[in-house]
């Protein structure tokens, strides 16, 4: 069946749905084609054991953009907001971070610096945030629109005042290890803070770009996510809410409709061919798939010019985070964690050197022998996720490189037991409570969600893959070297995280384009 649409959106991830909704609200006829049977992409809830449900992609809501939510009329029910972060230890000598305060066995100076640092970096996040919600400006061939956006960014930096502007420029390109060492003493505090600068990326505290990622995460603070939140029913509800909003705007959503190829001739896209052979045509083809999947698999390297093929090949997108999900008979007891924090974000990490050493393994294609864990038991706040009296646990595990040199098939179980043992040392008796458990490596995330490398952000969020160079030069501002083919995924500006901004910016830009 051949049908004419204004736009085809490939993938019902939250960015694809956002883009679709904005296009439909502007009067366009839009269809979203989703390979899986559910919507939401990595904003997903899955029942991994009978009666046990878990967010199997993104774990927390940390970035949802209020303007996008308002525009699309989306309101979410949260099971919990402002989850505290507790750095847990076997002896119960824990640190607790909540909002801009930290408590535990640390110096007054550290406590004061913590509040000061969060406020300080939030000022920078505000500057950055302005640049995230608009298309990335082209510096050389940009039009007046780009010049205004650049000027706004410059002006906002200038308005920080001399000292802060200087500090932003000083720290923006360096690493969190140095910056945190300048201010803090407590090793575990620094390590726990550094996690906000490395998540999902091939980075550790000493890597450049960790300050950038930290600031990027802080932009979520401006939308009410100073601390992470849990969506009732899991992140899949976010996907469903975006899908509802899109449908309400008039978008047609087809699930189980896997796109086999984007049809391109003479560098002009005309439509897509589904796996079942159906050809669907449209004026604009918008890919919500990551850039590597879009060009290497759907367009095909042979159908585009070689320089661009090389750029896409060199786009860095190899995931580093595994996800452990556990069905539990009862709530495990972590030393020093009281009932009100049991559903919080429980972090197992040593100092920043511990994190850095965990990362060393990943550099050489090995999993961390002593990984960094981010544990959450969402069923504490949300009884819809587990049978009565029982619980589910999800754990973000760093580092688990996508390309494990020794092979994931052979080593997944070993790595899983390392993680389980590590949890056991912090919560004795934990393993006896386990009804079912599974570890999703980046390779599994790739297979499940169709995202290259199982990368959270569709590609490393680093300065060379940021703003006008995300994903790559010549594919900036959501267009590509292929006419009528646009990108709207986390692989574009501003990047990963469930915010909706990539889809929002892409839609605005597509609507500016003639002929769509």
């Amino acid at each position: 069946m051949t049908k004419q649409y204004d736009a085809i959106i490939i993938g019902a991830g939250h960015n694809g749905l956002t883009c679709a909704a904005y296009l439909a609200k502007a009067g366009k006829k839009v269809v979203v084609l989703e390979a899986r049977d559910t919507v939401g992409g990595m904003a997903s809830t899955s029942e991994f054991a009978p009666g046990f449900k878990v967010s199997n992609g993104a774990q927390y809501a940390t970035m949802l953009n209020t303007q996008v939510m308002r525009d699309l009329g989306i309101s979410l029910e949260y099971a919990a907001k402002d989850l505290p972060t507790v750095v847990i230890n076997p002896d119960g000598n824990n640190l607790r971070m909540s909002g801009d305060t930290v408590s535990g066995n640390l110096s007054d100076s550290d406590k004061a610096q913590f509040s000061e640092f969060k406020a300080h970096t939030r000022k920078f996040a505000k500057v950055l945030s302005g640049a995230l919600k608009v298309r990335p400006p082209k510096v050389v061939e940009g039009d007046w629109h780009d010049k205004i956006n650049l000027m706004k960014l410059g002006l906002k930096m200038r308005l920080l005042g001399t000292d802060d502007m200087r500090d932003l420029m000083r720290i923006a390109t360096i690493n969190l290890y140095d910056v945190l060492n300048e201010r803090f003493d407590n090793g575990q505090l620094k390590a726990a803070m550094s996690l906000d600068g490395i998540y999902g990326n091939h980075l550790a505290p000493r890597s450049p770009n960790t300050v950038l990622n930290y600031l990027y995460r802080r932009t979520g603070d401006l939308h009410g996510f100073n601390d992470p939140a849990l969506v009732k029913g899991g992140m899949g509800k976010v996907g469903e809410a975006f899908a509802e909003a899109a449908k309400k705007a008039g978008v047609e959503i087809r699930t189980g409709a896997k796109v086999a190829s984007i049809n391109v001739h003479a560098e002009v896209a005309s439509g897509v061919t589904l796996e079942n052979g159906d050809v669907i045509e449209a004026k604009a083809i918008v890919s919500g798939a990551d850039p590597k999947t879009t060009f290497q698999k759907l367009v095909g390297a042979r159908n585009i010019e070689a320089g661009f093929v090389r750029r896409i090949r060199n786009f860095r997108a190899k995931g580093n985070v595994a996800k452990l999900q556990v069905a539990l008979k009862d709530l495990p007891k972590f030393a020093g964690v009281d009932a009100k924090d049991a559903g919080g974000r429980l972090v197992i990490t040593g100092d920043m050197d511990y994190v850095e050493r965990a990362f060393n393994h990943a550099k050489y294609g090995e999993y961390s022998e002593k990984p960094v864990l981010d544990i959450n038991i969402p069923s504490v706040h949300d009884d819809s996720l587990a049978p009565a009296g029982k619980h589910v646990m999800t754990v973000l595990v760093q580092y688990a490189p996508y390309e494990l040199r020794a092979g994931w098939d052979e080593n997944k179980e070993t790595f899983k037991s390392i993680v389980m043992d590590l949890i056991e040392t912090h919560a004795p008796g934990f393993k006896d409570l386990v009804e079912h458990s599974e570890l999703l490596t980046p390779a599994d995330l790739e297979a499940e969600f169709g995202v290259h490398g199982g990368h959270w952000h569709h590609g490393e969020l680093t300065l060379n893959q940021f703003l006008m160079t995300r994903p790559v030069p010549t594919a900036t501002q959501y267009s590509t070297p292929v006419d009528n083919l646009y990108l709207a995924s986390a692989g574009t500006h501003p990047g990963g995280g469930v915010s909706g901004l990539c889809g929002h910016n892409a839609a605005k830009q597509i609507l500016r384009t003639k002929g769509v």
Partner: protein
Amino acid sequence: MLDLNTVREQDLIVEPTHFTERLKPYAKTNDWFNWKGYMACNTFECEGKEYAAIRSGTGVFDICPMSKYDITGPDAMEYLNRIMTRDIAKLNVDRVTYVIWCDDNGYIQDDGTLFRLSENHYRLCSYEHAMDWLMNCAEGFDVEIKDTTRDIAALAVQGPTSFGVLEAMGLEGLENLKPFGIMRVPFKSGEIMISRTGFTGDLGYELWTTPDLAGDMFDELFEAGRLRALKPMGAIALDLARIEAGFVQAGVDFLTSEHVIRTGRQRTPLELDMEWLVDFNKPLFNGRKALLKQKEEGPRYRFVKLDVEGNKPAHNSFIFNKGKQVGTVTSAAWCPTAKTNVAFAMLEWPYGRDTDNLEAEIYFQRELGWTKVMAKCKPMKGPAFDPARKRATPPSRI
């Protein structure tokens, strides 16, 4: 002939070729230079005599240093078609074609010759080392790319007596070989591949064989050429011949795009008068989109071959149009056979549009006495030298 182990042991930066030992006795001026890592001669004895050999006898040029890549596999044709601006599907087996290729911006990366040796086997000869780019282009194609520069011993045999020389050497069947054709003849324990190609704009051939036969091929060629004015020629004589024949030289008349540092110093085929090498009917090749855009918007430069008044070569001259500086000369020579003072010039658009009033500002000196002349220039329609013998099949047996 070239013992690679010995060469590696010596840890040389510039290596001898398969013919260096044979050529040494002829290199009376000992004037060697570094051609992409191999020894090559500027002159053997006297560039004038070597040029005369090309136009009146036979000049032999060692092309072992030229970069050579063998591309094989079921996707070889489609792979090359995405790289080259020409339609490679039109190149038949045992034929050769001149090619250029561009980057995504439409800037010329390099030029060279492409040989189709069999259905799925091509050989690309390039000016630059091309392995990196060829590998970069291979994603998605079932091809194998091999640098065969070292594995092939090759000589260019160019000039009006070249056919007679090769026939006297015992290479049979050459009379039917058309320009840009390829044939193979048995030689000793192997064979010589002969292509009717060259860089002199004259009757001429290139002989390709395996290194083990290089010495024998050289000896028999020079023996056959004794009475036919055969000489080794150096790069200076060849440069004069190519200017006379109207051939542009990479690295001289244009810079290869990956070696340009300054913005805007690259050139597109449209700016080098090479649109005839670009097949826009092909749905895809590197640079197509950028070139279509430039075709619409107009090029920044225009490349012209000029007939310059007088006999003073316009080396490095500025070109003026009614007193306004509009361009520069990239190659220039007084061409003895064509009796033409040739200059290749790059004119800036839009001034280059009007070519009726061009003048070259030529500086020259006689015993430290400098003189400047403003020489009128006329654009040439074709090459200064374009003899019928270049195309004659069968060629003359002189």
